């Protein structure tokens, strides 16, 4: 990467949130601001990376392959052969050239600029993923997108802006897989907009496996039309500071949204998940299940906001967030935030924080199973209901594997 001073980003220009901001109360971004970043650009010749990057993809199932290096589309490393005509999976920059009308209909229409990070993305982003699934089309395989970030010698800022357009009666499943290079500290700051048209089904998996010296911020903003189903699966393993904002707006009737999250943190990792479900219309249902496993000196934050507007009668909204603390020094701050303005609604939320259950541990050990495996079994048991929601079988076991790998514990596999 060239040492181009013109590309040097002054984060101070972007009014990034401080802990005085209620939404960022527990997440101090000062460590992010200690570095001067250069904006991620394409590497030019990236062919040699092809075989290197292969190991970062989840394997053993068919998928369309897309690669972004530091936020810039790497067309040569991507493989979209077999994609049905009419369906578009491309970079934002290409899409802009070829489908500008469609783009302007959707881009920046759903996500407002809520904070300095969104602004940073908005003003600097030149690329990102676009998935366009026209009316009635079903993408036959998941689209697996590898975002590969960072650099050996520079502090890199990547600012992909993603847009997923699922028109009426369409279906798509996307796996966003974030990884990085062992090297200098880097910042990944993503904005993802999802348009789920009438009767559409959108599954969006995010697996964040960034390097330990990186910072990762993403805002997902979905906008759903009637009878649509949006499933968001959010797995956090990496990063030193992670902040996810997962938002959806249920702007018509009979909409369903599911947010599933599993975050693991150890050492000094900090993981902050903010979710916001905006029930604007009647007869919709939303369901959130978030679980955290915190070890070492790590810190977790969960803030789940559910807004049921006055018109949103017969809303069903559920939220559950649980965390297990594996060490004495791990900390979690959770806050449910229910704002209900309709009278005929069913809303429930539950939060629980605790240690691994001692009675269960004794039960396992009483069968001759040693302490370390017993604990691993209980970790798997704790994570099970989130992991089981993954619809792609092969992905499920691989994510389970990552849980143990990340916590540096004996793996428990089912056979």
């Amino acid at each position, binding site marked *: 990467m060239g040492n181009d001073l013109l590309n040097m980003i002054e984060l101070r220009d972007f009014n990034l949130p401080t802990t005085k901001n209620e939404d960022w109360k527990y997440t101090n971004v000062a460590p992010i601001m200690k570095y001067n970043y250069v904006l991620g650009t394409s590497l030019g010749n990236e062919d040699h990376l092809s075989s290197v990057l292969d190991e970062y993809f989840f394997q053993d199932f068919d998928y369309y392959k897309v690669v972004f290096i530091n936020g810039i589309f790497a067309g040569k490393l991507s493989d979209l052969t077999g994609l049905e005509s009419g369906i578009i999976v491309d970079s934002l920059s290409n899409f802009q050239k070829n489908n500008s009308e469609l783009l302007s209909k959707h881009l920046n229409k759903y996500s407002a600029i809520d904070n300095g990070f969104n602004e940073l993305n908005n003003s600097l982003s030149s690329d990102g993923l676009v998935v366009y699934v026209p009316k009635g089309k079903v993408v036959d395989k998941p689209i697996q997108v590898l975002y590969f970030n960072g650099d050996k010698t520079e502090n890199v800022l990547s600012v992909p802006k993603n847009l997923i357009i699922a028109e009426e009666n369409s279906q798509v499943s996307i796996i966003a897989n974030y990884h990085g290079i062992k090297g200098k500290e880097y910042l990944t700051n993503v904005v993802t907009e999802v348009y789920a048209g009438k009767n559409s089904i959108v599954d969006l998996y995010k697996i964040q496996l960034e390097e330990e010296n990186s910072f990762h911020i993403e805002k997902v903003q979905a906008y759903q039309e009637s009878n649509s189903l949006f499933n968001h699966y959010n797995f956090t393993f990496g990063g030193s500071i992670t902040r996810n904002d997962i938002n959806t707006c249920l702007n018509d009737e009979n909409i369903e949204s599911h947010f599933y999250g599993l975050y693991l943190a150890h050492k000094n990792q900090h993981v902050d998940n903010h979710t916001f479900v905006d029930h604007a219309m009647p007869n919709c249902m939303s369901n959130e299940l978030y679980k955290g496993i915190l070890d070492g000196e790590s810190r977790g934050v969960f803030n789940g906001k559910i807004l049921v507007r006055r018109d949103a009668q017969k809303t069903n909204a559920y939220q559950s967030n649980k965390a297990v603390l594996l060490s004495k020094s791990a900390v979690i701050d959770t806050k449910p935030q229910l704002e209900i303005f309709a009278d005929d609604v069913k809303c429930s939320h539950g939060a629980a924080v605790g240690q691994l259950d001692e009675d269960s541990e*004794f039960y396992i050990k009483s069968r001759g199973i040693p302490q370390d495996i017993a604990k691993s079994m209980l970790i798997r048991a704790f994570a099970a209901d989130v992991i089981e929601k993954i619809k792609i079988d092969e992905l499920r076991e691989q994510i389970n594997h990552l849980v143990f790998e990340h916590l540096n514990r004996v793996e428990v596999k089912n056979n």
Partner: protein
Amino acid sequence: MLVIKNLKANVEGKEILKGINLEIKAGEVHAIMGPNGSGKSTLANVLAGNGGYEVTEGEIYFEGKDLVELAPEDRAREGVFLAFQYPIEIPGISNATFLKTALNEVRKYNGQPEATPKEFMELLREKSGVLGMDPQFISRSVNVGFSGGEKKRNEILQMLMLQPKLALLDETDSGLDIDALKIVSSGVNVFKNKDNAVLLVTHYQRLLNYIVPDFVHVLSKGRIIKSGGKELALELEEKGYDWIKNDELIEENV
């Protein structure tokens, strides 16, 4: 096989076992009966090494080894097995994974080779057959969604798979319908031989028609207040526990 001398144990600082003396020899079946809250499960848990129970006095020797010093997993590997009164559910861990891990840990400890997948499946088929269990259960999570009776059966299956020397069965009969009671009892009878021993905790003499005990003990307020042969259970069924207390016939067992 098992020698308990003047065993006292606390739960959360409260003394529950107040001096238990009991000896179990290989080939014997002992039954412990007694009112709710008398300490039967406490005794079983103390023997299995539940960390929630604190031994404050006394000794437990199992095959000459001091059990109190052993971690629960090592007690299990030495051959102590507790069928829980309330078996625990473990979501996300299949019965197959659970049983195979347990079996191989016990085998490793005892210097035996691990079971091959084929051996494991054969053993499992044989043992689950004894208990009339639907083979489907093996891929389900441990005890999750199992009925009360199925959980109890699963405990006995684990026992049959692990082949302990001493099986502590804590109210394995409660919650079983009549057919299930017969099946579970036959599982225990299949298990029983001259080299192992069974300690049954039960409230019902009915179980003892199927698994015939050599000794029956009455536990009350943390002490064994009477011991006898199998006819003691019949007497208890008929008269309840009060007559012993009234008699104040405190007969500490050997």
